[in-house]
């Protein structure tokens, strides 16, 4: 039997809040609103792949160690032919240069937290003040760096709440660059991967400090969910055992079990219904699972569908945009990926995708020798189907004729899976007002709704970080005993799943879309609660900060001026 499309208390009405999106930004709203006795309606465009998420017992994730279903056929991916996005580097490139998948995030109940391996470092204290710290920095010329209207100390208790709510493993104090934490992680680190052991050996020689990567993955039985057994199908896969603390099996589930939450899946928001004065939202117009129109109403509305979709929905709806800031300052992370191949098998495909990392390349504001890179993930290999694609691409580059025998030998000898590591450095993307989301003038989805168009070009700021740290990553591979090392060529169209900006928060409506609490400046009952609010991208995986900030938004909605009351024990 297929999992239900509507979850929770189906008798509810008169909702206090309607949340668009059920991932890292939406689930915390549902969690905290229901915790405080409010009624919540969640609208999710993707499908539900859980049994009994809204029941106390017998929770089952219908996700498997299935590369064909998840990776090749994209079970929870947006199918980009029928729901395309378009891309161009800049306005002078024409209306678009590409139609298809542009920074697509998973579309499913639980959003991107289902497929991610949920690496959850916090941002650093300085990350919230780059407008000030990079003022007059010549490398940042032309960029739109801004201070966050909330800082690390304001968010710290929310970070701590999320660490317990999702169940994050880690070792406080192990990252020498991390900002202070008021509490311990609720679980110690899990198994260290052999490939991380090898890289740590090189890092010690070069003076870098490798630490266990904080991750929302159980290393103990926690919150009724089992410990991770390191199946290796983590990044890009739903967790079969629910050891991974996606927002679906943690916050959404808690919200559902209160009896005050209802979730509609396979339901796509077409537009917000804005009043004539453009000061309020009166409802949302959707297409239900059968494609037929359906409307929902609530007292307050929250956009949490990820930054590109948030901006698209706001623009489709005609939300007040007097300063033309909706969709602007889109950022990703400019990732520099150093591939190392060892002579021996280092079996990085066993275990979580990443068990360790280091922060030595985060850099320092205004230090030309230490540009703002980011945390480095020590990654392992993939599964054999993805490995095969890797070899096929290489072989096609080397010869127009497919060399089947060599392909077979590569699969057997496995340099690209069993002997590989990837050192993935995140890096601060300089926000630029010209990098934006708007509506494509002609391309539409299968329902005739205009597609999001992404205009994006990298700034020398992040390219410089890659130039500086790329050779250092290669040197680390050499020091760790790798035989071959190279920097993976950057994709012309960013493929990072770290998507931020578009509804940036700030004090000044001329340079921001939402106020410091996350509410649209010009709309009294519309809020945003995901990475869209980020004024800057930092150099760390954004999910932890997305969830913590969403909790802060929920707190601001529930207890204006005292958001911390929402997470009080």
């Amino acid at each position, binding site marked *: 039997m*297929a999992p239900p499309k509507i979850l929770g208390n189906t008798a509810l009405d008169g909702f206090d809040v309607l949340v668009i999106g059920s991932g890292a930004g939406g689930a915390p709203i549902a969690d905290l609103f229901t915790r405080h006795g409010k009624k919540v309606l969640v609208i999710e465009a993707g*499908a539900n*792949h859980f049994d009994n998420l809204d029941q106390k017992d017998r929770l*089952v*994730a*219908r996700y*498997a*160690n*299935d*590369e*064909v*279903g998840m990776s090749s*056929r994209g079970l929870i991916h947006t199918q980009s*032919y*029928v729901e*395309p996005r378009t891309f161009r580097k800049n306005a002078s490139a024409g209306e678009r240069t590409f*139609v298809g998948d542009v920074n697509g995030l998973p579309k499913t109940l639980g959003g991107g937290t289902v497929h991610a391996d949920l690496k959850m470092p916090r941002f650093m204290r300085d990350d919230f003040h780059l407008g000030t710290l990079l003022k007059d920095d010549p490398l940042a010329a032309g960029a739109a760096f801004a201070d966050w209207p909330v800082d690390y100390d304001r968010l710290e208790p929310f970070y701590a709440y999320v660490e317990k709510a999702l169940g994050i493993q880690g070792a406080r104090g192990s990252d020498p660059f991390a900002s202070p934490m008021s509490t311990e992680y609720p679980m110690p680190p899990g198994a*260290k991967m*052999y490939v991380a052991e090898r890289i740590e050996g090189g890092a010690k020689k070069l003076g870098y400090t490798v630490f266990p990567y904080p991750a929302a993955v159980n290393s*103990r039985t926690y919150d009724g969910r*089992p*410990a*991770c*057994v*390191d*199946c290796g*199908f983590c990044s890009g896969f739903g967790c*079969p*055992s629910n050891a991974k603390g996606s927002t679906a099996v943690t916050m959404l589930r808690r919200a559902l079990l209160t009896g005050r939450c209802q979730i509609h899946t*396979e339901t796509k928001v077409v537009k917000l219904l804005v009043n004539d004065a453009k000061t309020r939202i009166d409802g949302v117009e959707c297409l239900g699972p059968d494609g037929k129109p359906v409307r929902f109403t609530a007292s307050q509305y929250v956009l949490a569908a990820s930054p590109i979709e948030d901006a698209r929905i706001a623009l489709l709806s005609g939300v007040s945009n007097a300063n033309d800031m909706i969709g602007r300052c889109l950022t990703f992370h400019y990732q520099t990926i150093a591939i190392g191949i060892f002579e021996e098998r280092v*079996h990085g495909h*066993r*275990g979580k995708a990443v068990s360790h990392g280091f922060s030595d390349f985060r850099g320092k504001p205004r230090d030309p020798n230490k540009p703002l890179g980011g945390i480095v993930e020590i990654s392992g290999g993939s599964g*054999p*189907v993805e490995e*095969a694609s890797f070899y096929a691409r*290489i072989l096609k580059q080397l010869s127009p*004729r*497919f060399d*089947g025998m*060599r*392909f077979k030998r*590569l*699969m*057997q*000898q*496995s*340099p690209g899976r069993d002997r590989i590591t990837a050192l993935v450095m995140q890096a601060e993307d300089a926000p630029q007002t010209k990098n934006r989301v708007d509506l494509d003038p002609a*391309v*539409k*989805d*299968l329902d005739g709704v205009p597609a999001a168009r992404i205009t994006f070009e990298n700034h020398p700021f992040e390219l410089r970080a890659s130039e500086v740290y790329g050779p250092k990553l*290669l040197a680390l*591979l050499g020091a760790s005993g*790798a035989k*071959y*090392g*190279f*920097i993976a*060529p950057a994709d012309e169209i960013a493929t990072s799943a770290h998507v931020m900006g578009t509804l940036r928060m700030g004090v000044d409506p001329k340079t921001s879309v939402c106020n410091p609490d996350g509410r649209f400046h010009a709309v009294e009952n519309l809020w945003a609660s995901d990475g869209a609010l980020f004024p800057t991208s930092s150099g760390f995986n954004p999910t932890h900060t997305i969830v913590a900030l969403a909790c802060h938004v929920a707190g601001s909605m529930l207890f204006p001026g005292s958001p911390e009351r929402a997470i009080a024990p």
Partner: protein
Amino acid sequence: MSARDSRPLAASVDGVSRRTVLRMLGAAAAARGVVACDGSDDAAPRSPGFFTEAERAAVGAFANVILPPEPGKPGGAELGAVAFIERLLTAFDVTPPAIYADGPYSGRFPLPDGRGGASGAFPPNDLARYRAIDRVTERWWRIALYGSKVAGAVNDGIVPEVVGLRDLFKNGIAKAVAGAKAPLASMPYDALRDEFDALDPELREAFIELVPQAAFGVPEYGGNPGGAGWSMVHVDGDVMPIGNALFDERTNAYYERSDAPIVRANPGADPDPMDQGTRDILAAVVAFTDGKVF
């Protein structure tokens, strides 16, 4: 994490492996037997077959271009590429369509015992049935398989027409069979490779993409019989629910599988060391990317 060589875990894990092999052989037999029903919730009778016997032989021959057969090392045909491709092309002959296997477990590996070992119990094979898909996903797969002219184009005039995989294979294979100087399946490798190179480029790409999926994906899609593809490339496969780390709930301790460690180096000799051909390719990649050989 501790190594458990001092405990009788090695025997336990080896025991798991033996049962796993038996299970996988069983799964392969089941996979062959369920072509008629696929174990799906509401399986309709399958069509008699998308390809003719001659076309099926040709698809198998071309699959062997991607993964050539050798003594003791199966090729693409033996690894189930024909069944895999045919099942995909006829996915909508059953309900739910044969596109996404369900989950979470295949039953090839056992449940953990909670004490850092494997229990004797195996979960049922959830992957043997397909899962229902939403209307957006269905629309895409109908376009992918039947083409945008039949299933309805989106953004016609802006993006190119999608030629359905069914037409791509049916027409391309029929043309190859008709034009071949000899039966494709009996051709020597070099001659077969020439025939492969003469295929429509899109069809060649489809083979390059689908044959490895068949060979190394979970067997429930019709390929990788008995996990033979995984064995050939030294992959355990879908290891859940036992996983690679063994967890003792009583002591909160993790233990390594001695045959497949996480923290330590693999035991024993490398089953397939890199040869000069692989090194040459890696050297070429390094040269192309301005990397380094250390």
